[in-house]
């Protein structure tokens, strides 16, 4: 077995847009952000103009604790492109503030993944520049 690590190859990287730039700026600063509704307090991700619960346009960016639990997972052995080293473990994390994020699990053996395990965000610079820091997740020890 080998430790799951962030991808280091020439993977497709996000191109932040006007709506998502605050999210990626947070990642550069080591902070995971999501949007909270000023009217109903619901959490929204991915970055949106409208609250997912009440369609209000009054959303503010707030900091996440970065903690949650694994909601679902898969372990990929056939890479989407040759740039991805296998195996890698896509996960959906149910964040403590009530929103879901898709990411990869790192820092443990691949067979350590399980639904319900506690995880926390870690950021890794990607693409050889300081422009993009991708949020990954590791098990909380």
């Amino acid at each position, binding site marked *: 077995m080998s430790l799951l690590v962030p*991808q280091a190859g020439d*993977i*497709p*990287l*996000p*191109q*932040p*847009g006007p709506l*998502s730039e605050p999210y990626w700026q947070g990642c550069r600063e080591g902070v995971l952000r999501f949007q909270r509704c000023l009217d109903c307090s619901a959490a929204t991700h*991915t970055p949106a103009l409208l609250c997912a*619960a*009440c*369609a209000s346009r009054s959303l503010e960016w707030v900091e996440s604790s970065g903690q949650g639990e694994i*909601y*679902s*997972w*898969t*372990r*990929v*052995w*056939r*890479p*989407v*492109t*040759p740039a*991805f080293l296998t195996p*890698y473990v*896509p996960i*959906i994390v149910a964040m403590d503030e009530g929103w*879901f*994020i*898709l*990411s*990869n699990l790192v820092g443990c053996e691949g067979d350590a993944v399980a*639904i319900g395990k506690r995880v926390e965000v870690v950021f890794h610079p*990607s693409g050889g520049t300081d422009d993009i820091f*991708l949020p990954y997740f590791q098990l909380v020890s």
Partner: protein
Amino acid sequence: MGHPFRDVAIVGVHNTKQARVLEGHDSQSIALEAGLGAVADAGLEPRDIDGVVGGIASNFLFQSRIGPAWRSMSPLGIPAVIEGAMAIACGLANNVLIATGEAGSYRQHASTAPWTRPTNEFVAAYGMFTAAEFALMARRHMHMYGTTPESMAHVAATIRNNGHVNPDAVYFGRGPFTAADVLESRMVADPFHLLDCAMTSEGGTALVLTRADRTEDTAKTPVFLLGGGTDHFGPSYQHPPVWDLGGVRRPDLVAGLVGRRAAEEAFAAAGLGPSDVDVCEFYDPFSFELIRQFEAFGFCAEGEGGDYVMSGVIEPGGRHPITTDGGTMSFSHGGASVQLFQRVIRGVQQLRGECISSQVHGAEVAMCTGGGSGALFTDVLLLGKDRP
């Protein structure tokens, strides 16, 4: 008010040759072949067509000089069929051709097929493709209900064996398969083994709809649209595929049950229920999807889909035989849209009684589907032999 599709009939269907590679073809040429085949199957001439659906069908419209004509750009399977039917029901066209095809767009297989790979900024960097998207849904179901890889493998083996005996299938003669064969194939995206997944291939497909009062002029037994519906949550492969993703209007209809509303609407329009369905031409991108669809459509209770598919209903001769030509696992998966029409094509062939393999004898009602939970949409079409 009468049935919305009382005055619409499917009178022509055609699949071109399907293959891993169709030498000498591109997407335009194979779609044109498909369109001509469907028009001929209907006993019509190209000049009879006064409406087309699908961007690629525009080429048919131009080459056969049948313009000016009605056109829709709807590309993806059952919604396009429903739109063509609506055009006829609304009096916008008399004979509508729906045609698509794909060839030459994916022949270097180092990466997964282009239509499987999202480009969105919140998923692409994490190595997502369709198998991983659907696996995240399947894993959640396994966690909630104890659904097993063995039940998924049984679905895959059943569908692949339908293709094994179908001379028109890309993987004709490649079986027979057992569930053990599926479980022993290499892992792609846990819990999906290679043989739990759709293939990639090339091909064209087309169908012709006409006004029901004109079917005396057509060649084959008309097939009718008893009901249909489309359930969508948004763009595919851009947001986390969360089983419990819900909407504000019907919070009970979570993404894991996508297709339930469409099926409810289709059954209501038809005045039928799951027990009336003789052929389940369910879309099969991954084996788990069929277990999920049986639950979403009300054939069995939530969580019981795994046991249901193991109970003898889905095989040839069972009460609800599935995906009888081999589906995307063995018949063909021709690209971004081709295979999304082919459950309807097969449903029509079953009701006509013209299948050269796995014909369901006396089939009166076929349920055809497209999409799946990992893509956050599922479309449903109920076909029948009797005019509604």
